[in-house]
């Protein structure tokens, strides 16, 4: 399904949680691949399975109640079948993660410097003094002023933006090959967001890492991502280059996202075009296409939308769509119904 030899290959990943209310299918059959030096953007509304995807790749659901199946191949090694200990040793060095809330990734009782030093020394046999020098360099690298003084500060003494930068310094201290950033700027003001996005982009160029950026902000992915995966109810419903998704989107849900989005770059005289209804519960995903109760075009397929789950199929040059509409139908709807109103 995916080309061999990609640095990261995710194949038919499923992460299900048994709960009192039933089985939560947070991720339900996800496949994609990513090369070094490339950025994949994952977008979708809250609850669509974005964070569970990233935690599953990082092996952070191991040992809990989660039922994980499929393959996550990092440079050829399958992380799903590896032990928790084996995956733990890969974290930091081979792969690292930035969270929405930096406080969840940092210990409140240790200084910022201490935490970067410890993270560094897990993978590098160096003295504390050498590690501290490295920590100061990293803080400087992410734009913390007076890093030699700030290295001894505690997380609560930093502003939100500085904390986010310190966490990035920690995540990048061992130069990971894969960086997953889960809503890295959602809690930040736009001017600080711009600084952090610049930072992620610069560091990626410098270290040639593979980056996954998870966000609900379409502006952020348009700016940063080479490829974009749109998720709905635990599955990818569209996948393509940033140009595919923004300039020639093919899935009704993607159209809905774009139609809902107010624009900062132009006067938009038309009303917003919301998606009707609300996202489904992942315990009771609608049969057939999970989007069908909210889709304006579900009736065009003689019932297929309600009964058969559409597969994510290539419609040319790596652009993939999971929808029963024929290419001709989609093209016509996009040109006449959607595009003129955006």
């Amino acid at each position, binding site marked *: 399904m995916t080309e061999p030899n990609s640095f990261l290959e995710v194949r038919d990943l499923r992460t299900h949680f048994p709960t009192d209310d039933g089985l939560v299918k947070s991720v339900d059959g996800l496949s994609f691949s990513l090369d070094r030096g490339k950025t994949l953007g994952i977008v979708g509304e809250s609850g669509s399975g974005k964070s569970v995807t990233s935690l599953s790749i990082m092996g952070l659901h191991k040992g809990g109640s989660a039922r994980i199946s499929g393959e996550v191949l990092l440079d050829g090694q399958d992380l799903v079948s590896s032990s928790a200990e084996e995956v733990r040793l890969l974290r930091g060095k081979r792969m690292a993660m930035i969270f929405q809330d930096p406080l969840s990734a940092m210990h409140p009782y240790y200084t910022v410097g201490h935490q970067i030093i410890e993270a560094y020394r897990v993978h590098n046999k160096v003295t504390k003094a050498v590690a501290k020098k490295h920590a100061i360099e990293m803080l400087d690298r992410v734009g913390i002023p007076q890093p030699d003084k700030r290295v001894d500060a505690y997380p609560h003494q930093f502003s939100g933006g500085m904390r986010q930068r310190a966490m990035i310094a920690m995540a990048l201290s061992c130069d990971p090959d894969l960086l997953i950033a889960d809503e890295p700027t959602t809690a930040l003001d*736009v001017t600080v967001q711009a*600084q952090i996005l610049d930072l992620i982009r610069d560091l990626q160029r410098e270290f040639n890492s593979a980056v996954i950026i998870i966000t609900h902000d379409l502006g952020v992915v*348009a700016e940063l991502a080479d490829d974009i995966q749109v998720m709905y109810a635990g599955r990818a419903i569209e996948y393509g280059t940033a140009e595919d998704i923004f*300039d020639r989107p093919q899935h009704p849900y993607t159209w809905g996202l774009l139609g*809902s*989005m*107010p624009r900062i770059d132009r006067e938009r005289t038309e009303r917003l075009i*919301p998606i009707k209804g*609300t996202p489904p519960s992942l315990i009771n995903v609608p049969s057939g296409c999970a989007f069908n109760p909210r889709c304006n075009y579900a009736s065009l397929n003689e019932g297929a939308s309600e009964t058969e789950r559409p597969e994510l199929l290539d419609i040319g040059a790596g652009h993939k769509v999971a929808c029963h509409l024929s290419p001709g139908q989609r093209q016509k709807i996009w040109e006449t119904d959607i595009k003129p109103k955006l």
Partner: protein
Amino acid sequence: MTTADTDPTAVPGVVEPEMGEELLSVTNLTKHFPIRRGLLQRQVGAVQAVDGLDFTVKKGETFSLVGESGCGKTTTGRLLTRLLEPTDGKIIFEGRDISHLGDGKMRPLRRDVQMIFQDPYGSLNPRHTVGKIVGAPFRLQNVKTEGGTKKAVQELLELVGLSPEHYNRYPHEFSGGQRQRIGIARTLALRPKLIVADEPVSALDVSIQAQVVNLLEDLQDEFDLTYVMIAHDLSVVRHVSDRVAVMYLGKIVEIADRVGLYETPMHPYTLALLSAVPIPDTKRRGKQERIRLQGDVPSPIDPPPACRFHTRCWKAQDICKTVEPPLLQLAPGHQAACHFPENQPGGEAPKKATAS
């Protein structure tokens, strides 16, 4: 959020309330929160959350307050709805000075001025049914409605796109968007004239956010509402506003109509703010010229003197550190507080922070 000039439903001969009439005006509005220390709780300083605002809001318009976290937007909203007592300055609503009205005198006014709160989760009492929450304003104000409160509440629920059957349900049974609708229904109960909406859509997913934005627009048309919209999402603000005020560290640095603000921003901070927003357009990738602001917003306890933006402004000169720039009208309907503004009429080609 204004209707088109030709309203097909308008009844001939009936004079619509003229837009442009002043509903609210604010002069030198100030709120300093005292900081107290020690056993005697002596005041050792103050958070200058809002410091000398001047603006007016016209009947029927949507006037937005934007700015980064902590700049004083919510405090301003709470002052306008008189949930807070101003430290200084005047608030005139419909020609009447309401700056220091006591609780008793404020009560009838609470019908006219309502607030939608920032957090759709925290602002609804989890132990009360939807019926009780939305019906509360009727009880508090002792308002008798035709057919009883229940019927009135059910009509309100329908108005905001919920079902009358939701009457006996509890807030936790609803999604974020639905909870915001419950909050809006409660706000509308007493048919207010002015609604101060504090980040009404910030916590919502984009598809649900669009539903609520459209709802607010429809309600404004239907009931001639005036909105003061508080938001930090500059795309949403461009979509909903007639006029916009930009705040920085407790002060208004620029006020303009929507087009003026987004097409020809004058204050350097506004330019920086607009240029920081990622644009969902692949053709602009890597081409967006971004003004990089250094550092963080200073503390409102000890704000920089004169122009509060001078510690981060790339245009700052000596005068910016000593003389406070007043908020001056530099183009029709366009005010900015800066010694060296951008995009002055008659100047060079406009600098559009949001254009390529």
